[in-house]
């Protein structure tokens, strides 16, 4: 079972929910869950789950290197490149690494076999044990690197669950490619939102992404009571289950600001999270 926690809007409480769910399940499941921090541009779940990283690996993509001695400047590589990361300019073939997505088309289709691929580092993936026996892994994108997807993809491939181990993925905010990658392959998506027009706007987009991927969705409303009824009306209208409501409460905000989890601030939530998990399991079977 793989559950991705996403939101659309940033700052709605994804990481608080993802880590609280994981901690609640860790007390009951053997083995405890595998947690993946897929927000590789700004990973912060370690603040709640306190892992010790024992393994680390560089990740990146393979970018083309052209052997000018073999290149006939036929232009095939430039023609097939979707990202215009390679240009044939008279008698020179120029690679623009910052545009390359590492798809390998130029290398595969070069009629002279004049292109080979060299690794281009974009970040690092790390893993190790965390609180309550949780297996923790995360990706960290290098500063200045614009492309998060390869790091997330390689994190998912590297940190594989044991048989029967539940996986909780904490997604980045937004609804673009990194979020799609964090959702892809999940059995269920939990969207954490807030009851504001902004929360609703991004929730609608996030629901579309999950539905495009054919993944069932449930909603958690955080800071409940702080805004308007728009999110509730939307969920009712499109048939989305509201799995949980976390009230807009000073004690929770203060606790999170001190690095505490929802289940540490209010231990009664642990049972609620386990009940949500059972509800999801039942809905999927």
């Amino acid at each position: 079972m793989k559950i991705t926690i996403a939101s659309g809007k940033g700052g709605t409480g994804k990481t608080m929910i993802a880590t609280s769910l994981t901690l609640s399940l860790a007390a009951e499941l053997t083995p405890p869950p595998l947690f993946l921090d897929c927000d590789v541009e700004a990973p912060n779940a370690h603040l709640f789950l306190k892992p010790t990283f024992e393994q680390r690996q560089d990740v990146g993509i393979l970018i083309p290197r052209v052997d000018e001695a073999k290149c006939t400047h036929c232009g095939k590589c430039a023609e097939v490149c979707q990202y215009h990361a390679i240009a044939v300019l008279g008698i020179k073939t120029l690679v623009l690494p910052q545009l390359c997505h590492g798809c390998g088309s130029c290398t595969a289709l070069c009629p002279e076999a004049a292109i080979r691929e060299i690794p281009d580092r974009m970040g690092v993936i790390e893993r190790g044990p965390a609180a309550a026996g949780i297996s923790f892994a995360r990706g960290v994108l290098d500063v200045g690197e614009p492309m998060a997807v390869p790091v997330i993809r390689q994190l998912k491939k590297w940190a594989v669950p044991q048989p029967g181990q539940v996986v909780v993925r904490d997604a980045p905010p937004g609804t673009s490619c990194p979020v799609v990658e964090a959702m892809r392959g999940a059995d269920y998506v939990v969207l954490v939102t807030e009851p504001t027009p902004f929360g609703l706007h991004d929730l609608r987009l996030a629901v579309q992404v999950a539905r495009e991927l054919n993944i069932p969705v449930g909603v958690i409303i955080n800071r409940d009571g702080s805004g308007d009824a728009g999110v509730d009306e939307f969920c009712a209208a499109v048939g989305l289950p509201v799995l949980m409501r976390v009230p807009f409460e000073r004690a929770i905000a203060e606790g999170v600001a001190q690095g505490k989890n929802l289940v540490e601030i209010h231990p009664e939530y642990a049972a609620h999270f386990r009940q949500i998990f059972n509800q999801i399991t039942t809905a999927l079977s």
Partner: protein
Amino acid sequence: MKIIITAASPNIDSEVDPRFGRGAYFLVVDPDTLEWQAHPNPGVGAPGGAGTLAAQFVANQHAEAVISGDFGPNAYGALQAAGVAMYLFGTNTTVREAIERFKAGQLEHVGAPTGPGRHPRG
């Protein structure tokens, strides 16, 4: 001689399009005879790498110089590798006027990218 200038519409009396990678048209012009040909920019709707694509077009045309309002790092690097001279159109408004100033040696030659890239991978 053949030069290329970015244009807002497909004729020599068009305004210069100040964008190189995202300019609407490329006008291929012979500055001596003022004979011209308009080509739609193949990269105008590209999700990224428009500058490279535009530079590829210029190189394929075997142009000696290109006039526009802005050359980002990818376009600049590619045009330089292709040996194409880059000029800024300055205060001129039409393609015809820009070409007259080019012939008079009054356009600013570009020796470095004129702005940051806009669409990195991602």
